[in-house]
């Protein structure tokens, strides 16, 4: 199996510095991403305080079982990603590729379950505020809960898709033995991103499924 030499960009002196830079960049980027969701969590908090009772009505649509299934799916996928990072460091790239592929499949499962939920919401007219016709509109606060639910889960869903693409790229690289003990920073960074996606859901899950 040919092992590709590590490409060292000209601006870096050593491979350690280059990897340190990549890792640092990912952490800083995750910090930035967190702030993106922080704004939405702040909105959630503000509206929940404004309309405590109405939120119960809004979130009554949500199926705790499906939400919990999705949580389990995502946590499991985070576990497989962590394992993949572990094995790629031990140069077991094939195994890592398999685990990453599995994680992408878990991501796909998550999305399918989410779409089932969305279909159900659309069927029950549990839509964001502006999409109601005035006739069947529930009380104001409940609509806000729905709007936040849709926007936050949809934004999270986009991050899931982005994470799946990253994991997919990492998986293909591992399968071709482009990544191994000599070079695993991309696998590690994709893993880090996936953990962020997972952690965001860990916050969304209680807010939209458990605290009803």
């Amino acid at each position, binding site marked *: 199996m040919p092992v590709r030499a590590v490409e060292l*960009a000209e601006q*870096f002196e050593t491979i350690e510095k280059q990897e340190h830079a990549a890792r640092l960049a990912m952490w800083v980027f995750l910090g930035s991403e967190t*702030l993106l969701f922080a704004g939405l969590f702040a909105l959630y908090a503000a509206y929940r305080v404004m309309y405590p009772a109405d939120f119960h009505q809004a979130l009554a649509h949500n199926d705790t079982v499906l939400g919990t299934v999705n949580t389990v799916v995502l946590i499991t996928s985070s576990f497989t990603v962590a394992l993949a990072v572990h094995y790629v460091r031990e140069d077991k790239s094939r195994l890592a590729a398999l685990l990453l592929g599995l994680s992408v499949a878990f991501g796909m499962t998550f999305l399918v379950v989410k779409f089932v939920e969305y279909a159900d919401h659309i069927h029950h007219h549990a839509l964001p505020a*502006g999409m109601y016709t005035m006739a069947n509109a529930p009380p104001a606060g409940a*609509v806000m809960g729905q709007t936040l639910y849709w926007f936050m889960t949809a934004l999270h869903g986009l991050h899931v898709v982005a994470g799946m693409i990253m994991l997919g790229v990492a998986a293909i690289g591992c399968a071709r033995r482009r990544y191994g003990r000599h070079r695993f920073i991309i696998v590690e960074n994709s893993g880090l991103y996936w953990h962020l996606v997972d952690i965001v859901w860990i916050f969304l899950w209680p807010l939209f499924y458990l605290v009803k």
Partner: protein
Amino acid sequence: MDPRGVGATHPDYMRAESGVRSWLLTKDHKRIALMFYGAVITFLMLGGIFALILRTELLTPETTIIDPMTYNQMFTLHGVTMVWLFLIPSIPAVFGNFVLPLMLGAKDLAFPRINLASFYVYVASAIIILTAMVLGGADTGWTFYVPYSSTSPTAVTWMGIGIFVNGVSSIMTALNFVVTTHTLRAQGLRWHRLPLFVWAIYGTSIIILFATPVLGLSLLLVAADHGLGLGIFDPRYGGDPVLFQHLFWFYSHPAVYIMILPSFAVISEVVCTFSQRPPASYRAIAYSSLGIAFIGFFTWGHHMFVAGMSEWDAGVFGGLSMFVAIFSAIKVFTWVATLRGGSIAFSTPMLYFLWFLFLFVFGGMTGVAVATQSLDVHWHDGYFVVAHFHFIMVGGALTAFLAAAHYWFPKMFGKLYDERVGLLTSVAVFIGFVFTFLPQFLLGNAGMPRRYYSYPPHFQWLNVLSTGGAWLLGAGLILALINLVVALKWGRRAGPNPWGSRSFEWITSSPPSKHNFDVTPIIERTPYDYHLSEEDARARSRAS
């Protein structure tokens, strides 16, 4: 060692490769900086044209040249173009991009491809914003306050998306700067040996990274509100428009520091170089940048004293806003103290520094004034605020941009501009500026609200004064630009270090070669060691 500077044996970065492709697909931070330079100058001129149309309309109390709808779209476009397409990328993406790696002794930024991508994302955002303008403009003002922005008949959705994309570009650049500063410092270049420029750009990048996502989110919500009818801030569904203001200002107040910190960066370098002195207190300037970056996140509420926030919130936000001014004041005093006992070259960047002192101190202190709650009630959303904002953004940031454009001109192009013309245009810019914006403080006192198309006749003569000043300012800027463009072609050749600076970007040749340094330099001094002779200084920053 070659006296022409390190690496002078190689062709410079502009001649290293030729052809359009070698520019458009370059990964060289210096070429990317030049492409950004061209773009931001274009948008400065565009935004300036919008401003002149606005000022001309305000010559008379009623209709002068355009109708109210055009006027409203024009001030929105002026704001959006100037804030997001000029001010935010101006100093970081042009001079930061060019000079920061040189100052660190690095061959490039940590992620050259992300750097290039950042430029194209910026161009894409500009195209979206200009398309939105053609598709019907936006008449919401650059603040996009809901619920007006969600119901406006104009292309608000596209405008929101354009600014979101622009935020992605800023984040990419900022990420690059932060990582580069951490990982690509030359050997021996400890944090306390970094040029002050680097500290301020680092602070700016931190703000961009943690504030821009919140703005991106709120503008996405506005775009979804306007385009899809999401209704998250819509009072008809129980939404609260004031929450949008909180989210918006959580970004947009720090954004003011995103725009002004880089000018502190420039001024610090200019002052030290032209007075041949180390800064009176290095740590005061360096740490106050970080202080501003940090405290700047907790002052946003002072934009909402009359929006119906609680009195105690107003008290806290007002107090914190004053803290920021103290950090800025420390910087100002340190700069002035640096001049004392120096050997000062009276040059164009230095003259811009003098204007900066007056405009920034007055603009900054009026910032403390508008953070004083009871006074803000009278001034809020009036011309006083417009004047204060422009004193900081034009008097501060644009003046510093011009100082940087002159200061690093030999570094970037290897030529010298005409100093006398430079000084004259600088005077024209200053006089034009004062005539434009000083009357606006008085208009604000007199009670003229901002974003007014027509106004009562007793405000007229101050408006006429302001409009006249605006034309002079525009002429001054054009002349300054012409002076530099002429120098590009006919200027005298500059040596590697025409100003006798000790800062690290001048170690290498001017203009630098494609890879900046043949070998990463070893730095054994600070960038402000003016007690060393130039030879000693060079010996202590070996690059070969």
